[in-house]
């Protein structure tokens, strides 16, 4: 009678999808893919209804545009565009000096150049760190949640140990051991951040695993990998996306802090390094070299925080207005 059972399970599954879809009138011939597209549309709608989220999205858009079009906004420094150009004939110029819109640093670095190319550095940092930790964390969290037993026990104790050390201090220690360079900051942050995703993913997998549609897929005789990829993963990633959005801002903040402390190469076009460099001039009234790059870090982190919060509210309507 196995085919009867399969058929009933499938019917139940369809029924469930029907309940979940936002608009029941289009039900005929619906696929899971189409349901997802429509849900995504509804999500975007809810996101755009929130004014602070829209502000965040606009800031992110401008930052991305600045990062992408950096060579067209200011001429790239040769040979390495990520190094600050040094014009020793124009040191300590105030903002508004012709050719130096935001002034220059003690070493004749153009602050405007640093602000623009710093957005590229920050974008690279956040994409590398969030991308790699999301993948590593998802794999490890999924393994722990799916396999259970001693694998789960071992991985989660490892996560506990990693979470015992405050984030910034841990990253600082790793970066210090690896030696001062921007690449090492990326490596250090990745080694620290992945645990968050592993923990979220494990909890999600454990929860999603118990759903009827996973049972249904097992009864049908789907392979384990297929069940994971098609049924468990897509239904478990939501909190991961919220965390990733928040982390896009968060890691730039921590990365800039590490750079500020002195763990980047000197002279790199990075906002934290520029704030640190500008610090020397504030006693003599040269406020601009720290102020503008720092403001960029603030705006970057703020934008992703706003969108992350908005995303969480849009995905979970219960938290609205809290």
């Amino acid at each position, binding site marked *: 009678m196995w085919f009867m059972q399969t058929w009933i399970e499938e019917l139940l599954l369809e029924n469930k999808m029907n309940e979940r879809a936002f608009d029941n009138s289009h039900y005929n011939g619906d696929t899971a893919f189409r349901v997802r597209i429509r849900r995504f549309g509804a999500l975007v709608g809810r996101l755009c209804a929130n004014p*602070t989220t829209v502000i965040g999205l606009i800031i992110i858009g401008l930052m991305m545009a600045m990062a992408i079009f950096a060579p067209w906004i200011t001429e790239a420094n040769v040979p390495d565009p990520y190094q600050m150009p040094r014009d020793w004939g124009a040191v300590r110029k105030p903002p508004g000096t012709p050719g130096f819109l935001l002034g220059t640093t003690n070493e004749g670095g153009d602050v405007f150049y640093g602000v623009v190319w710093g957005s590229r550095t920050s974008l690279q940092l956040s994409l590398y760190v969030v991308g790699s930790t999301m993948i590593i964390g998802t794999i490890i969290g999924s393994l722990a949640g799916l396999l259970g037993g001693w694998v789960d026990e071992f991985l989660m*104790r*490892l996560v*506990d*140990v*990693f979470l*015992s*050390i*405050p*984030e*910034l*201090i*841990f990253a*600082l*220690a*790793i*970066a*210090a*051991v*690896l*030696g*001062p360079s921007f690449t090492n900051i990326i490596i250090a942050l990745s080694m620290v951040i992945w645990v968050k995703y592993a923990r979220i993913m494990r909890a999600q997998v454990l929860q999603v695993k118990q759903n009827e549609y996973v049972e249904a897929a097992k009864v049908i005789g789907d392979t384990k990998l297929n069940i994971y990829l098609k049924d468990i993963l897509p239904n478990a990633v939501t909190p991961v996306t919220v965390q990733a959005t928040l982390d896009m*801002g968060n890691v730039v*903040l921590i990365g*800039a*802090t590490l750079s*500020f*402390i*002195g*763990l980047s190469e000197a002279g790199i076009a990075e906002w*934290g390094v520029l*704030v*640190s460099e*500008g*610090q020397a001039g*504030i*006693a*003599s*009234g040269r*406020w601009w070299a*720290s*102020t503008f790059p*720092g*403001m960029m*870090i*603030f705006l970057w*982190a*703020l934008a992703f*925080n*706003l969108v992350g*919060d908005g995303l969480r509210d849009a995905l979970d309507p219960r938290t609205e*207005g*809290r």
Partner: protein
Amino acid sequence: MQLRDYILRRLMVLPFLIIGVSIVVFTLTRVGGSPIGIYLSHEMTPDEVLEIEQRFGLDKPVWVQYLQWAKGVLSGDFGWSGISAAPVADVFPLKLAATMELAAASGLVALFLGIFLGTFAGARRNRAPDHITRIVAVSGASLPQFWFGILLLIVFWANLGIAPIGRSDATVFASINHPTGLYTLDAILAGSLRAFWDAIWHLMLPAITLGYGATAIIARMMRSALVEELQQDYIDAARAKGLAEKLVLKKHARRNALVPTITVIGLTFGFLLQGTITVEIIYRWPGLGRWMAASVVRGDQGTLMTYVLFTSVLFLIVNLIVDVVYANLDRRVTLGK
């Protein structure tokens, strides 16, 4: 699960977590290669190098070295601090007092201000004070502290010239004894109003810089907890009894909203601990954070690793206390499985 069992279980796990952290820390010191580098010079013969290796046990297997190190740490030997040219264990308490004074001042201000702001906003949901608090909360989470500190310095130190830098005025420092290392407390013990005022004056800007973000975390949690409580039935009951709105808010809603707010205290503590690093650099505050930043830049591993180990253990203990207090206050919490 009984509360007592929960506390016991957490206490039993704690040593294992600390051992785990110490292994991570020890591994980190060895990632950069053998620590023998600090003792070597160009004139040494291979025999002399070998002798140094043997003297410090660096020729033994790594796990033996770990045990040696752990034994030293347990007996209070944290190694040599290159940048202070003294044993880490000697310098550490002095720096710790400076950092603790800063963190405690910021934490206390943040706690009161956060609870006040959160209550104020939560009671006026979706009105102007609520929106302002939300701006404070979101900006506090995104604000780079090192930049905020520099902005304050630009305004109050460089331009207005009213704020000091450092921890104390030199003549005031010399005028009283410092038995505790906490300057505000020392001034009170010495009965010197001038020294007390000087300590507060020096503490003000760093505490604002550090406390802003912490205030944001607490205010945000307090607000949402209060909003939640105000929707409960017992609030309606209290109002129906004819209690004044002020009493309903203070005696009923706020008291219950404080319970979930306790959970963010552990988070706030970690935030303050991490924040001291950059704040101390900017304000020339002679504490642990600045010491550690200097040791990072100059590759002084003994200092760095002691700091990481110490802050992690402190962080673990504070979180344990917070969890236990919370479980004790909120009986709805399910403890473990």
